[in-house]
């Protein structure tokens, strides 16, 4: 034997670097990241680009894009600046996307973790509840929740989170079921680690990668759901949101296409970026599926 097994390999680069290396191999994912960065930047700089209220009257109603440089992307029916709406809308869309996703993931993780970890009747009960939620068409449930709670953006976001948790719950449950009998969990249990620690310290971090990837899907769907609500006139009119802009813009679609089309394209691109981001994350976090 020439090589001793106890010799260490050269240290590997940090997780972050490895992650980034894997991520950047996917060129589409880089594009996704770029668009996402642009959207985030828009959300952050909204206050600099237009310090005023994006809902105020900024010019003559229905000014076409590139006509008046005070409102470069034109104005809507009430003379609101579309560019400013686009920037402030990025905030709302991201907020809805991120918070609703967090809500959905949080509920999903708790339910899925308990069901998957304990199994037995806990699993049975929790899965029946999950099935019940899954059986009700989620958009109908969303409409019902919005009918109950009203169209405040906070409630809408919460409601979107509430209708989106079943898929992550099932994923977390499946992950937990496969991880709970892994040897490292047994090893930790054998050290005397408590159930709570096993669930949250040992298993959860290992169950997260597919959930993180799926989060990008929820985020995308949340934005689509918010816009569909707004389309049906159930958006929160106190904020400039892309969904609201489309919802109102469609009334003037035939005469002032830009009112709906510009935020529409913004939604398509944002959702697209989430989706590409998700694929990149998948490549980076679950490297088994290699190119």
């Amino acid at each position, binding site marked *: 034997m020439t090589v001793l097994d106890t010799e260490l390999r050269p240290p590997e680069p940090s997780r972050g670097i490895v992650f980034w290396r894997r991520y950047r191999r996917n060129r589409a994912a880089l594009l996704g990241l770029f668009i996402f960065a642009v959207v985030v930047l828009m959300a952050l700089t909204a206050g600099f680009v237009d310090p005023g209220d994006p809902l105020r009257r900024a010019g003559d109603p229905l000014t076409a894009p590139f006509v008046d440089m005070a409102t470069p992307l034109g104005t809507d029916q009430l003379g609101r600046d579309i560019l400013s709406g686009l920037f402030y809308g990025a905030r709302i869309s991201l907020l809805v996307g991120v918070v609703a996703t967090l809500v959905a993931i949080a509920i999903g993780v708790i339910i899925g973790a308990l069901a998957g970890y304990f199994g037995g009747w806990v699993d049975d009960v929790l899965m029946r509840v999950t*099935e019940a939620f899954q*059986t009700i*068409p989620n958009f109908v449930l969303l409409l019902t929740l919005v009918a109950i709670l009203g169209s405040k953006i906070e409630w809408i976001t919460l409601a979107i989170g509430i209708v989106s948790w079943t898929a992550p719950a099932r994923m977390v449950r499946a992950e937990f079921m496969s991880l709970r009998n892994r040897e490292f969990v047994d090893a930790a249990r054998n050290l005397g680690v408590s159930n709570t620690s096993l669930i949250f310290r040992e298993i959860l971090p290992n169950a997260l990668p597919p959930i993180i990837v799926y989060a990008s899907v929820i985020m995308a769907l949340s934005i689509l759901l918010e816009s569909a609500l707004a389309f*049906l006139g159930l958006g929160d009119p106190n904020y400039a949101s892309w969904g609201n802009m489309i919802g109102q813009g469609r009334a003037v679609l035939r005469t002032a296409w830009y009112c709906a089309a510009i935020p529409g394209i913004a939604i*398509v691109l944002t959702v697209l970026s989430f989706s590409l981001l998700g694929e990149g994350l998948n490549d980076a976090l679950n490297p088994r*599926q290699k190119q």
Partner: protein
Amino acid sequence: MKLALPPILIYSLRRLAQAIPVIILIMVGTFLLLKLAPGDTVDALVGDMGGADAQFIERLRVEYGLDQPVWVQLWRYMEKLATFDLGWSFVYEQPVATVLMDRLGTTLLLMATSLSIAFTVGVALGAIAARRAYSLTDNVISTLGLIFYATPSFFLSLMMMLLFSVKLGWLPVGGIKTIAGFYTGWDHVWDVALHLIMPTAALSLIYLSFYLRLMRSSVLQVADLDFVRTARAKGAGETRLMFHHIMRNALLPVVTLFGLQFSTVLGGSVVVETIFTLPGLGQLAYQSVIQRDMNTLMGIIFLCSIIVVVVNFLTDLLYARLDSRIELA
């Protein structure tokens, strides 16, 4: 198996026994949830009428039993439901069962066509993309899939309507048939098909993209499995590999998704049915929510639960058919 019943029947009964608590949970939950909403169906009706005087409103409430405590209302409803009586719709002034049956056909037609198109086309494109992974074909298909996925269905619907109905005049704007057309036989079928093209497209594209992406990764995964290597070592060609070895195994996760998505599609059809004025359950559900038409909404949810249970049962059977590892007997 000691009982002399055929296994499929026993399995069905077992599934039914599992489904009943879920359905009861759903029904009670929905009932109480809807009761939390401000206002009731009388408010909605009066709003629709353009107003009414106070006695009239009071009388309606008593008539509809809305003056009773919630628990009494719930108990009465569940009692009736236990005999499969879905009650009376105060908004439609018809038995809920009639209201639902009127709509069910359209919805099933729309959902069935959308899902089957999404499924077949998605699976086919996904398989093609996976077999030509990372080529131009794959990139085109994957990009299309992403765009389908990212475009809100209402946006797509409006754009299609603008193009195909208004500008080109090829397709009707909405509805399920030409109303004063009085078509019969194949003309009628053709007429309905024409009306369904755009709604089907609008509804199916996002699911198509789901299936496409899932199928693509599933095929890529299965193609890496050992038995595919075995088949290749046997001298099987790529086509044979695809159809005899990869396809069936790769379809399994897609079939699972299919079962899970059925109720989501019903939700998605709310918007599409609204835009294309298709008299389906999705639109009915939305209307029932904003009209607080408890009985109708409960009926829809009930019907939907049953459909979902049946569809899941069928996908399980299909799954068992596809996956010989699952014993049928």
